[in-house]
């Protein structure tokens, strides 16, 4: 049995969260963080999966308003039940970027200023960020119209599914209004997946993705360029990985000819407008 000096399982490093300054009630609330091992000599595998579309039970938050705790929800992902499930991986000495939607934790909270800590992991192995401030505001007119326009006829709003699912009408796809659009990530991606052909799409459509979105913007730009020039895919992917090492997995896929944009465009049932 291990004594006090014996090694213990590697731990996750504290999270450093990138976030928007303000979020809008009813819309996604994306934050980004890098998963790292506490010690640089360690790599982590079989970590619970969190993506921008679904977080399972691996996310948690502690939310304060005016110093008072108003929401506490611990990460509680289960261990894997399938031996072949790979989960998320953090390379030895490396990092894995996570884009996560924390809106589900704010569904019953009113607009206002909050201090938020984000947690990630399982009940027994988890890590947390330091508190950071955000503002949650009510939707403005244009945003309220979006909520009505995009809400499905039945069921709850699932912005992830709305983003990647083929629109009922080809002309129902348009780019984000501006950088303040709370759906700027979703609309951009949807526009690339189901909008004009990637040969003709204006890369400037990505410009709305600034701030915390710069790694995703660079990755999408590389994807579009790789679509137009497949032989450059590896070089483009390597450039993104060098700048944003946490995107290694998606860029490996791009280098192998498995870019997301191409994937979704291939499987859509109708040609784009």
């Amino acid at each position, binding site marked *: *049995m291990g004594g006090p000096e014996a090694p213990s399982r590697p731990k996750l490093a504290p999270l450093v969260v990138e976030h928007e300054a303000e979020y809008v009630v009813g819309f996604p609330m994306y934050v980004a963080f890098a998963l790292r091992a506490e010690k640089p000599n*360690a790599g982590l595998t079989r970590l619970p999966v969190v993506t921008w579309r*679904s977080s399972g039970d691996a996310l948690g938050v502690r939310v304060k308003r005016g110093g008072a705790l108003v929401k506490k929800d611990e990460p509680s992902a289960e261990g894997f039940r399938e031996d*072949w499930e790979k989960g998320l991986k953090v390379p030895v000495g490396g990092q894995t970027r996570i884009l996560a939607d924390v809106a589900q934790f704010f569904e019953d909270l009113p607009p206002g200023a909050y201090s938020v800590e984000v947690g990630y992991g399982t009940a027994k192995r988890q890590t947390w960020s330091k508190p950071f401030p955000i503002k949650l505001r009510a939707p403005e007119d244009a945003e309220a119209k979006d909520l009505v326009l995009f809400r499905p006829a039945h069921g709850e709003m699932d912005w992830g599914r709305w983003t990647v699912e083929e629109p009922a009408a080809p002309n129902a796809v348009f780019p984000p209004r501006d950088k303040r659009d709370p759906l700027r990530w979703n609309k951009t991606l949807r526009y690339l997946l189901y909008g004009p052909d990637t040969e003709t799409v204006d890369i400037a459509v990505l410009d709305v993705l600034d701030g915390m979105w710069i790694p995703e913007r660079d990755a999408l730009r590389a994807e579009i360029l790789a679509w137009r020039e497949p032989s450059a895919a590896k070089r483009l992917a390597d450039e993104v990985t060098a700048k944003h090492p946490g995107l290694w997995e998606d860029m490996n896929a791009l280098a192998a000819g498995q870019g997301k944009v191409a994937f979704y465009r291939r499987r859509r049932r109708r040609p784009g407008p």
Partner: protein
Amino acid sequence: MLSSYRVSGLTAVVTIKLMSIEGIPGVVRLARKPPYALATIGARRLGRSRPITGENLDLSAEAIPWQHEVRADGSPIPIEVTIWQDHGDKKPKRMTRIQAEIASPYPAGPMELGGEPRVKAVVDTHEVPSDSADVYVPRVGDGLKHGATIVVPTVVVVTIDGIRGLHKPVATGKSGVKRAEATPGYVSEDDLGRAYLDRDLDGKWRKGTQLIELHAKVDVRSGSLPGDAKVRWTMIGVDDFTNDDPGFHSEWGPYVDARDYDQKGEHRGAHLGDNEGKPAHDPPWAEVAGFDLSRKTATSADTKIAGNESKVVLHCPSTAGDNFMVRAELHTSSARVDSFPHQTGIITMWHRLDVQVLKMASAEPLPVEDVPAPFEPACVQLDFAAPEEIADEQQIGTTSKEFFDNIADFVDRAFSKKSEPGWFCVIAALEPFPTPDRKGDGAIIYHGKVKLHATSDGWEYVEIPGTHSEADFIYLRRPDGDKIGFKLEDMEMEVVGGTMITRCWVYPHDTQPEFTAGDGSTNHAYAVRLGYGPRMQGKWEHTTTRKGYEIDEEPEAIVHGEGEAYAGGISPEVGKGGKPKVKKGDPKYFAGRTVVFTQHQVYFDRKTKKVTSNYRPSVTRVLVHELVHAFGMPHKCGYFDCRTPRTETCVMNYGWPWMVDAKRQLIPKTNGKTGLQLCGRHLKEVRRTQLHKNKGLAWK
């Protein structure tokens, strides 16, 4: 051929009661494991008996009388008595067989069958008077006047001639997509009749409803029907025969039919009272218009006879595997009626599910024909619909994590009958995500001795020389030469004692042996999870008890780099109401939605673009495994299947872990034996499952 139930040609109702088996040879009765007897009279199974410990076995002392009432038509009535000895994991041995017939006119009285040993029986024959019987009157001398009053006896034959809601199996234990059908006149004379849970009389899904409607014909052969005559219906209890079959492993008997066993787990002879479900109404009888219902009790009711027929609706017990018979007889205060009753065969409650079959255009067809048979012991009927083609999607995601993002939505879109209660779905897809052209384990990156360490909370690790961030899987050799494989997770590289090493953490095998039928949620299915590492075992993520696979502290190890293990099939879990997205903290439910990847490299050759010879057995196993999940059941139970001789493990196991015994200790060398059948626990818990309580299915 003997017809036990049909009215046509009915000549007698013959009751045969087996009283004893006598003269059992010492070589039989003195066997180390006491033998037991089984019998059949006509189509009816009897037994199993108490253990045979003496020269004679008094069958009149059995908890359930060894008798059967046969509606004979002139054909001989076959009787067979066999004596068996259980041999645990080995094939059971039939030690004696006595075969006999009772031929028409079925003489009443005591009789002996066979020689050594012999069966003593008593026959009671109730002849049906012929339609043209002569009437005899006293004789007197010639020329004398005389008179006689001839009273024509009232002879009434009651015949159950139809049961709505009862279905006759058409391919028990065999391949095929057609499993049972409503058959006019069928009254379960083969004892295999099925009534369905959560179905109305027309077969439509209706929550908490299980009904049959019995029709009886009242045939007045002579005389007239008394004015107060009614049909009395009686529900009769039956033993669950599952565990009495010599081919059913004795270890699983007490779990499946506890009442047949004593406190030590020894079979004490068949006993009644096994039904676990309750009828939706108490008393369970309901009136059919025109056939007034009276004298309702929990087990019987009377109905009016109108137009020489009578009908009643019976609310059946609500758990799959529950069984019963129904007797119909004339009830009247008149003493001058000679009546002949009729009884159904055994009717058993079953789950019945329709399964939508979807196939991507380029996917291989799913071998669904072989899937239903393994579910039959669990009283589950799966009716697969004809395949419908859907558009190809070569992969569901570009990476494994994107696959998990997409799979539930993909199934939600494709499964067009998801809102219809009673439907499951299987989909033949192509690949989950892009996978390299390799299969199985990755390259060997280390082969040599390692030292196994364990932390105080039970996590085990090894250290191998060099830097190997790609380490993914390890085989450790046991002292007996067996290799046991484990996944690796979390690598650390550091200099230890002047040498650069990679510390690899060993992911234990998990087992769920304590599961029960629940609400279909994964929380319930996996509530008790045990872990078994190379040298440690215990509760999951707390394997602090030393034992595990009892691998030496410094075993030979073979460490592989990342391989290509991925799912052959997957059943995406859903939230309440079948929603594909589940909010944090909300329960996830199994919902009978299964995707099979028919281009999995285990059975698909990428060069020839054809499936290999192991496609059919492999995919059949995947389909059975995944559809057992649909009942809220966990996998990796750690048990053998329910049969003997014992050769295979439950279909819910994976290939590499060892099984566990009753004390939750690993049983050596039991990996690699996964079969197609269920263990006794899965069998029983699938029966107990109430699908209408699964909030993920949300069948209303």
